[in-house]
């Protein structure tokens, strides 16, 4: 890509997007995609903190069979529900696209901003409003449905927070749709001259696939939650059999959105890994076309597999068989990506810096997360494992071990560009190690818990001891190991928070292109100037032309 973009004028003047204007209002009403990205990043991480503290509460409680913290069952049920709901709706759905994506999509395209800057701001404001509904749920009522809101429990029995929380999720859905529309148009219309589809960074491809799902799937969950609200508030029978409704219908509607949204979460992390593995190995990506096409394939096949959440729910046997088959089909494009990333490292020049350590972690954890999906996709084994801790471990390996680890990799990789500062590399590596070890200790044990039969969403497990004392002994030991792991992981995460904050105030100034990247975001200043580039960048090659072009070879 062109390095012709001249940043000198603004550079010399010392202005960038952070200091161009001042005051709180200049942030709240900014149209700059970079500032919106930063606001998303801060909001998302704050909710990650809330959701994470709830998770620590859950883990602490399960340290002993009767519940170690003295929480009542109802309190525990609220804790795990809010952990799941906050992590899903407020953290992981927007996570990488809304923060890193917002910040870097226009930069990678050589554009001044996204196609609809005001829509972008509206999307953030809607996110904020939806978040307020969740905060109100926590403060004023309570929510004990699980994040899945299964009817008829949610419409008939659960605590009063159901309407507040689902309204919040409904609003957050609109935030997702606006981001999706914006990204699709931006990618189609605002690519720099010469930036053809096959020269797009793979992160952009992944955002494109993600946006398709945002736009196509989110309306369905919006309608579903609306129906739930109508049933609960006005007693119209839709899902509750007592009113003549069908509870399995809710599960179909819910998973029609919530399964594709799993790919909303993971695809951007795939995109991040494609960027990180190439730059830090100084290699062209192995199989560019295969990786780009597989993102789109996953986005589409992802719409056809929702029924694999319902093998034992009472749906027809034929549906179950078809959904199982399609589930195995979606494994193929996913496997292609993993193999391609590993192959990219062949004959590379691999540096062991923090972003690359996260890439190694990702490949390790995602392999486990993806492969354990085979047990759940196969019908006969899912009958045993469904709704046990095996499922909990599996989706944490994918959601946290892969999406969140990819997110951390992205933050470390692009931190110098976003803030203009370098973080402490030594602490970065130590924290990455702590998170990796803590994560595996926490969640690998849960695979064994699940295969041995421990159901999920249990506030206590002491009753098991009356029936099978050996089982109770095993459950207790495994839960204790898992809890210890979660606190190791928390230590690592707080360390990251500490050195990243410290870097903002005391970090060394970051160069414009610290890793020697070839995509356009590295061709402007760190931090970027307000309008991203001084002139219009022109692109004459792909984003991974190592080693032919390598800024690190002097």
């Amino acid at each position, binding site marked *: 890509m062109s390095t012709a973009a001249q940043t000198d004028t603004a550079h010399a003047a010392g202005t960038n997007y952070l200091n161009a204007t001042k005051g709180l209002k200049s942030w709240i009403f900014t149209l700059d995609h970079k500032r919106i990205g930063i606001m998303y990043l801060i909001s998302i991480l704050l909710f990650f903190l809330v959701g994470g503290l709830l998770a620590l509460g859950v883990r602490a409680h399960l340290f002993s069979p009767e519940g170690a913290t003295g929480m009542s069952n109802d309190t525990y*049920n609220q804790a795990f529900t809010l952990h799941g709901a906050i992590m899903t709706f407020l953290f992981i759905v927007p996570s990488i696209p809304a923060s890193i994506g917002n910040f870097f999509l226009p930069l990678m395209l050589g554009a001044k901003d996204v196609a609809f800057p005001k829509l972008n701001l509206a999307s953030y404001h809607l996110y904020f409003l939806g978040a307020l509904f969740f905060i109100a749920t926590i403060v004023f009522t309570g929510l004990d449905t699980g994040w899945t809101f*299964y009817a*008829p*429990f949610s419409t*008939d*029995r659960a605590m009063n927070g159901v309407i507040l929380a689902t309204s919040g999720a409904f609003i957050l859905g609109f935030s997702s749709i606006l981001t999706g529309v914006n990204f699709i148009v931006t990618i189609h219309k605002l690519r720099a001259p010469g930036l053809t589809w096959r020269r797009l960074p793979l992160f952009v491809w992944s955002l494109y696939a993600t946006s398709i799902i945002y736009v196509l799937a989110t309306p369905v969950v919006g309608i579903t939650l609306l129906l739930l609200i109508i049933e609960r508030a006005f007693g119209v029978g839709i899902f509750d059999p*007592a009113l003549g409704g069908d*509870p*399995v219908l809710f599960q179909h509607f819910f998973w029609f959105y919530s399964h594709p949204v799993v790919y909303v979460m993971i695809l951007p992390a795939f995109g991040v890994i494609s960027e990180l593995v190439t730059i830090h*190995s100084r*290699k*062209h990506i*192995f*199989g*560019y076309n295969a990786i780009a096409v597989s993102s789109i394939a996953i986005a589409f096949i992802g719409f056809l597999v929702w029924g694999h959440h319902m*093998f*034992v729910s*009472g749906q027809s046997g034929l549906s179950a*068989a078809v959904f*199982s088959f399609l589930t*195995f089909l979606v*494994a*193929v494009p996913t*496997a*292609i990506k993993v193999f391609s990333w*590993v*192959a990219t*490292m*062949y*004959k*590379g*020049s*691999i*540096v*062991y810096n923090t972003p690359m350590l996260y890439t190694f972690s990702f*490949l*390790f954890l995602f392999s486990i997360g993806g*492969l354990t999906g085979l*047990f759940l*996709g196969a019908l*006969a*084994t*899912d*009958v*045993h494992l*469904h*709704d046990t801790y095996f499922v909990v471990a599996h989706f944490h390996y994918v959601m946290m071990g892969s999406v969140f680890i990819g997110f951390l990799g992205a933050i470390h990789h692009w931190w110098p560009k976003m803030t203009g500062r370098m973080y402490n590399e030594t602490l970065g590596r130590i924290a990455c190690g702590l998170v990796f070890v803590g994560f595996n200790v926490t969640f690998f044990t849960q695979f*064994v818990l699940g295969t*041995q*039969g421990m*159901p*999920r*969403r249990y506030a206590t497990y002491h*009753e098991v001891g009356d*029936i*099978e004392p050996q089982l109770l002994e095993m459950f207790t030991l495994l839960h204790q190991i898992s809890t210890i792991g979660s606190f190791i992981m928390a230590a690592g995460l707080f360390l990251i928070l500490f050195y990243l904050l410290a870097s903002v105030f005391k970090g060394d100034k970051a160069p414009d292109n610290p890793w020697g990247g070839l995509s356009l975001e590295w061709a402007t200043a760190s931090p970027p100037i307000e309008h991203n580039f001084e002139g219009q960048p022109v692109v004459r090659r792909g984003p991974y032309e190592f*080693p*032919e072009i390598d800024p*690190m*070879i002097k």
Partner: protein
Amino acid sequence: MINTLLANANGATFWLPVQASTFAEVHDPLFYFIYWVCVVSFVVVVGVMAYFGVKYKRKQEGERTSGNRGNFALEVGWIAVPSVFLLIIFWWGFQGFVMYQTPPANTLNVRVTADTWSWSFRYPDGTVSSELIVPVDQPVRLTMTSESGSAQGAVIHSLFIPAFRLKRDVLPDRYTVLWFEATREGTYTLFCTEYCGTGHSEMNVPVHVVPSDEFAERLAALDSAPDGMTTAEWGQQLFAQQGCTACHSVDGSRLIGPTMQGLYGSTREFTDGSTRVADENYLRESILEPSALINVGYQNVMPSYAGRLTDGRLDAIIAYIESLAD
């Protein structure tokens, strides 16, 4: 293989619990097939990654790397080989599912009712039990539904027996069917695995797999105290098994319903303004028709136990509550 070496005589391994049904015998080989596919795939992917990571570690800045951008044959290969394994796993899993879906003829039919938060099992002769008792080596068919004996609606539960490797959701207003053939005598756990609120984690009961010739005897014995247990002690056991403890404490602390400590003989005040001394008849009526009189300060949420407790069991529970009088 390591897992076979670790296996106990009862089929339990590091990964899986006791193997006690014909479905478990179908499930476990598939489980271990997938397991070894995963182990080998993981070792290959992470092994190659680690090898490249060490071999191609950056030795000095600015070293020249390979210009490799792909390899068509390799890419076709790593699509084809996993696809074969995926198809095998799909087909194998489907075969097991066909068995799960199709109960044989001549089963012992047990009707299962789930309520918040207890199970009841009704046998062909009309006997009702809160624990599942089944004869070994005979196919059993569970016809399951969720009901609500209280003012609140019924919710979804799920019946899960890890030793049998089986589960199926239990829904309000319709029947779902689960069948199994137990192969090993013993006592195992039956869990609820669909989240159903406050008492979800206490909704576990024993599954007794008994010799065929003892089965009739065990069913008959459901109506009298086990050997060496007083009626009140048996009542205490039933009080826990029926899920009463989820809402009623026995130590004076307040849960969803009134505590049982000092309840017998006390004067109760009701929401309709009336009062009554809690005697045996009051206790009996309150268990069978809980919504008739609601204690002041409590909600009308308790399900009715009419038809779910035999008279002998009801007497035992009442005897236990009497023993908790001040």
